[in-house]
């Protein structure tokens, strides 16, 4: 790997390009508060972000920090610091990136200057973890609180029924809902204690209303990508998660997703695609290589557009009664579990929390997506340091093969560019596109 092989993403939508103006304003506001010594919570995807807003808490997402460090090519430095401290290169590179940052912070008494943002993530006053998606996520915060910062910590623990248990059985439903309710209550109790504030349910409801409004626009935007040519590609998709992470429940976020929806709708009406001559429509599985998001533009230069992604969905929109906002949080989590169950959750039963990210599971969901989005192939990024998201790719490949949809599994990582092999990956991508050509010649996949 050399730096010259890495390229940053070129976006297609005006709305996502505008984030460059919107986000710095937001980050500046955050920084001002940080510099006045307001406590910062380090958070993990999977905790309901609306709660953070309801407590008016300053927060950072170390996972997102990992993506930023990767895209600015500084992650290897932090990762190597962590590895020298004894953390295995097999561990999640978002984790090792953070551990390196923490170690340097402790040594220097301030945020390492290598950080992509001035002041980096600062230092945490509390940790809000989650067992959603994988166990390294809560182990990560346990390690931070053991090794670097002796601060209070709460980890949510959402569970969902396995694929062969009927979640509609009222006793099973109650079994899981009870856990989800009590876990949420525990989280609120923790936040009230740490912030000294009482949760204002009315305020939370308003935030959730705006958050759900944004999610509805997001859902409708994704549906527009069924159009041929696809009006939106992965470079816009993966960057569009940021407003829902940082500005959840803000009018700014609703506005952002509304504008994005309108722009994409307009592109569909005017038949404007990401690729002029769209030859291949792909579904992307796994985390993206954040250090080389230009990969998607490279694919586009070959006539291949990603019309659907399995990860980093900003969240599913579920119709839930918001009159009791706490029950609404529990119910949308459960609804996601039900939806996943309906689609077949044999690879990831615990992936049930829709708080921020969607994620993917389910063999029958694939069939629906292949048909609705006119997909011609699957591209699977096998991330060595994230088995949680990679798990199921072979199974998914088997399912796609049953539908005569070719797929390619290629190996690298989401934040650690040391695993990137440019020439090898591009050779394999070219060969894969040829496979789709041949499948089309044999009539196994449709002409676009």
């Amino acid at each position, binding site marked *: 790997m050399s730096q010259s092989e890495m390229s940053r993403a070129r976006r297609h939508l005006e709305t996502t390009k505008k984030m460059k103006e919107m986000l710095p304003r937001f980050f500046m506001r955050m920084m001002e508060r940080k510099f006045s010594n307001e406590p910062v919570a380090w958070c993990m995807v999977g905790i309901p972000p609306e709660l953070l807003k309801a407590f008016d808490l300053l927060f950072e997402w170390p996972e997102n920090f990992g993506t930023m460090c990767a895209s600015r090519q500084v992650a290897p430095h932090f990762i190597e610091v962590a590895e020298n*401290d*004894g*953390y*295995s290169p*097999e*561990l*999640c590179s978002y984790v090792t990136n953070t551990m390196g940052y923490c170690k340097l912070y402790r040594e220097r008494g301030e945020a390492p200057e290598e950080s992509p943002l001035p002041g980096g993530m600062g230092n945490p006053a509390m940790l809000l973890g989650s*067992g959603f998606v*994988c*166990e*390294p996520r*809560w*182990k*990560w*915060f*346990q*390690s*931070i*609180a*053991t*090794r670097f910062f*002796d601060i209070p*910590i709460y*980890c949510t*623990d959402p*569970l969902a*029924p*396995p*694929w*062969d*248990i009927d979640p509609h059985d009222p*006793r*099973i439903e109650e*079994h899981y809902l*009870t*856990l989800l309710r*009590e*876990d949420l209550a*525990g989280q609120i109790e923790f936040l009230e204690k740490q912030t000294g504030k009482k949760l204002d349910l009315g305020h939370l409801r308003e935030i959730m209303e705006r958050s759900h409004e944004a999610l509805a626009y997001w859902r409708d935007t994704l549906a527009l990508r069924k159009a041929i040519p696809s009006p939106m590609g992965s470079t816009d998709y993966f960057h569009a998660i940021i407003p829902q992470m940082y500005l959840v429940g803000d009018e700014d976020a609703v506005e952002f997703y509304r504008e994005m929806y309108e722009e994409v709708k307009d592109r569909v009406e005017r038949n404007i695609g990401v690729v002029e001559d769209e030859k291949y429509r792909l579904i992307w599985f796994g985390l993206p290589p954040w250090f080389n998001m230009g990969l998607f533009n490279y694919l586009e230069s070959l006539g291949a557009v990603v019309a659907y992604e399995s990860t980093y969905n900003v969240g599913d929109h579920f119709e839930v009664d918001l009159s009791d906002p706490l029950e609404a949080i529990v119910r949308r989590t459960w609804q996601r579990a039900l939806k996943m169950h309906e689609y077949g*959750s*044999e*690879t*990831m*039963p*615990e992936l049930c929390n829709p708080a921020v990210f969607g994620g993917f599971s389910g063999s029958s969901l694939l069939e629906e997506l292949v048909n609705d989005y006119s997909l011609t192939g699957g591209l699977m990024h*096998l991330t*060595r340091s994230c*088995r*949680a998201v*990679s*798990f*199921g*790719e*072979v*199974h998914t490949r*088997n399912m796609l093969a049953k539908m005569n949809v070719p797929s390619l*599994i290629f*190996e690298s990582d989401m934040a650690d560019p040391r695993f990137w092999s440019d020439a090898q990956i591009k050779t394999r991508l070219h060969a894969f596109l040829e496979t789709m050509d041949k499948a089309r010649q044999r009539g196994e996949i449709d002409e676009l």
Partner: protein
Amino acid sequence: MSSNRFQFNQHSFTTAENENLVQHLKERTKKPVIGYLCCFAPPEIISAAGAIPYRITGRPGRDTSAADAYVEPYGCTYVRSILARAAEGELDFLDGLVISHSCDMVQRLYGIWTYYHPLDFSYLFNVPHQLTPWARDFFKRELGFFRENVEHFTGQKVSTGQLQETINLYNKNRSLIRKIYKLRKYDRPPVEGSEVFEILMAGGVLPPEEYTGFLESAVHDFKRREAAKEKVPRIMIWGSIMDSPVLYKIIEEAGGKVVCDDTCIGFRTWEKDVPSTEDPYDGLTEHYFINFQCPRTNRGPGVGRFNYLLERAREYKVDGVVGYIISFCDPHKFDYPDLRDYLKEAGLPMVLIDDNYSFEPAEAIKTRLEAFIEML
């Protein structure tokens, strides 16, 4: 060493022999065999429902390519080994399967295994990661669902009295195992670590009442033995699952003596009794959820979560700790730097063997361990 090794009806308790034995048991008793992985779903419930609980094991070092058709190459090699065995039909003697939501990989193995190779009975025993009061309640309810499902499969109801009796049987075995461990506290222990390990492996296959007899003979035999001839460095093994005595034997060959461990087929399972409670499901929850020391369960931040290890090391007069972690075993890999530093501060050296569930290259592992043991 072998002439002095404990023998029981000419059996040794390696994976292959255990599998032969369980199949004989199945023929003899006409009971179904329910295979299980990890230590959360209590075998007591399987036994009380009239089935034979069988601890499934992998085959260290053997080719796992049969798993490639179903799972990715990056992942716990132990789990891949088990899936490869299932794919190759080696585990077809199982009538049922119980997998606990212990770590991510084991939990996901359940879905893939049962999707591609369904069994007559299968159950994912779901386990929270946090030790909160509501997680505890969830675990207890899960025990009830598990019991119902096993009952439905075997057609045999489990009364509270029967369950308590079965728990008592297992507890008796636990106390016998602790007697064997106690002998290892001597300055010159009369038993080898690898020998004790094989005895523990027998616990994964023998019905509890037969295991009692087996253990009683072992205790009897060991107590009559002379102390070891010389004092050698005393080792504790900590880490990922180990279902073969290979590492124990390498340590012995390298000049050390394994006197205790913190592994799941080892002392984590046998250290304590299931507490006697009015409602046996409370005791089972206490034992299998609260007390069971696997790093997949959150015992809070801070090195205080390792205190039990240091206490054990002192109790057994341990000179050094050998850490053993299987590739991609996240829960142990996360804990390693903290544990290493904690032990170092307490004056206890630690060496880490990072292995892909093959114990290869054995010579290189042995050389590292020889250097470590020499240093002690």
